[in-house]
């Protein structure tokens, strides 16, 4: 009883020791390689889960299995139209072959140095072929694809897969920005002037048109009024002619008398001779 208890306890203690130093878990976010006295064992990395190794002689090195980020420092780059721009890019990458990765670059730091060298020079080469405006706008995707493709090839031998090189910021150096501000200002001033003069143009057109219409309206009215007056005159003339034509003699006589009344009403000196019919009874 006593003996078996002691053996049992010892077995448990030894078993636990062996187990804890032999078993290891790899997290879902990790991958691992086993190294036996400095030499990697096997030709495949270990995925997530429970694994075993020989205690003491074998050690485990863990690597991140996730997509990692490499945020490069902004860099001044010259475009083909001799303009300068600060390009800020980031690279998404991943350790796909931990064995190679371990032997070639060993750490994330080492990988960053490689990425920096390669991505930077690829960006420089690609951006140098385009003009600034192409980089900023419609060629952006193409450039990024090209850099991604080339970087991927060049970094494959290090056990690194480049998933995406993406241009984050494209900024202009301060002095170029100033000249752009100057141009923007000039453009806006031009536009403001244009708006104002267009307003004045439209205003003048509307006013002139209104003046013209007013003149036409008034002239039309004048014309119509004269036509109406003429009609009145003509009708009156006809009425007079119809009536007076019945006795031109009498009209002549009465009209003459009327004219005398009107013509000789004041300050007139009459010299009458006795022969005047008016004085025939005076003799």
């Amino acid at each position: 009883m006593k003996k078996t208890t002691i053996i049992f306890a010892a077995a448990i203690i030894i078993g636990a020791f062996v187990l804890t130093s032999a078993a290891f878990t790899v997290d879902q976010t990790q991958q691992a390689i086993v190294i036996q006295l400095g030499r990697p064992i096997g030709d495949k990395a270990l995925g997530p889960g429970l694994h075993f190794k020989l205690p003491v002689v074998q050690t485990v090195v863990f690597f991140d299995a996730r997509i990692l980020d490499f945020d490069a420092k902004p860099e001044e780059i010259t475009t083909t139209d001799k303009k300068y721009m600060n390009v800020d890019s980031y690279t998404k990458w991943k350790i796909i072959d931990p064995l190679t990765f371990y032997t070639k670059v060993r750490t994330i730091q080492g990988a960053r140095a490689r990425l920096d060298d390669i991505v930077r020079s690829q960006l420089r080469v690609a951006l140098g072929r385009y003009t600034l405006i192409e980089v900023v706008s419609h060629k952006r995707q193409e450039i990024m694809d090209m850099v991604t493709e080339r970087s991927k090839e060049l970094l494959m031998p290090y056990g690194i897969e480049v998933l995406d090189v993406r241009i984050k910021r494209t900024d202009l150096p301060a002095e170029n920005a100033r000249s752009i501000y100057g141009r923007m200002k000039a453009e806006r001033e031009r536009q403001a002037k244009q708006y104002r003069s267009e307003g004045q143009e439209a205003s003048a057109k509307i006013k002139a048109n209104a003046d013209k219409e007013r003149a036409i309206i008034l002239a039309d009215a004048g014309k119509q009024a004269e036509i109406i007056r003429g009609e009145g005159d003509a009708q009156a003339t006809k009425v007079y002619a119809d009536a007076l034509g019945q006795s031109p003699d009498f009209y002549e006589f009465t009209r003459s008398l009327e004219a005398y009344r009107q013509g000789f009403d004041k300050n007139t000196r009459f010299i009458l001779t006795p022969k005047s019919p008016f004085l025939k009874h005076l003799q």
Partner: protein
Amino acid sequence: MNWDWDKLQKQQQGRPGGKPPSFDDFQEQFDKLKRFKLPGWKLVLPILVLLWIASGFYIVEPDEVGVVKQFGKFNRVTTAGPNYHIPYPVESVLTPKVTQIRRVEFGFRSVGRPLTQSFQQGVSREVKEESLMLTGDENIVSVQFIVQYLIKDAEHYLFNVNDPEQTLAHAGEAAMREVIGNGKIDDALTTGKQEIQVQTRELMQRILDNYQTGLSVVAVQMQNVHPPDEVIEAFKDVASAREDKSRFINEAEAYQRDILPKARGEASRIVNAGLAYKEAKVRRSEGDAARFLAVLTEYNKAKDITRERLYLETMEALLSNPDTEKLVMSDDALKQSVPYLPLDKQPRRVAPKEAQ
């Protein structure tokens, strides 16, 4: 000295464990311990095991999912409610909040407000190096925007990318700059905002899906979009110039609307004056004609006497005027007198009547 020693021995015997214990004592103590502890173990061990088993219970809140790893390897996803996993060290569980909508600010940072609260146009600080962007027509515009996102796939979110939030921030900047770079400054400043938001959201989602971040972009919302401070005055002046333009046009239309009705009124006055003249003239002539014809009828009945009467009445009227100078001369006297017309002596007092 002996007495001292005895005294000391007595004192030490009084203290527990003061005397170095003999082997027999130890054996006795050990046996006691064995006897004492064994029933204890029988009780404590099951309790410990039960506690260990109980530690596998966990609760997933309604806004969370449970992601269970078995020896570090992803095993299953559990939904809201009480759940169980095999206790440490076999299984472990992570519970990310998947329904919570998070937000990131680009180009500005809110001041004195928790990040989870929805945006209010309030106190914020512009971050120029993030907000200033080049447009496709080589202008610079300041764009401030927020991105709302949530975790759509907890497994991808937890295991695929080493910093999903940082990745989202990078993708947001890259996407917005790409979209702004493809457009013109006026699109960003005026009518193109909606389109830019949609395109940026789509592009961001594409980038994030490409990395399998497990994040879903709910919305991209542009906040404050304005020209850089250096040129903002010129832009404002364009806006006021546009206002001036419509003001000029409105003023001209007001002028037009003022003078044309007046002219139409005036025209109506002119035409009516013509009509009045016509009607008056015609009626006058009709009246005159009627009067003449009436007189003529009577004249035809007694021609001579009427003629004589009319003549005499006229002469009478003329000569009865006291201002009229009358002079009766014989023909002979008239022949002998020298006609003399004193034009200067008789200024005319009245304007002459128009001759018939």
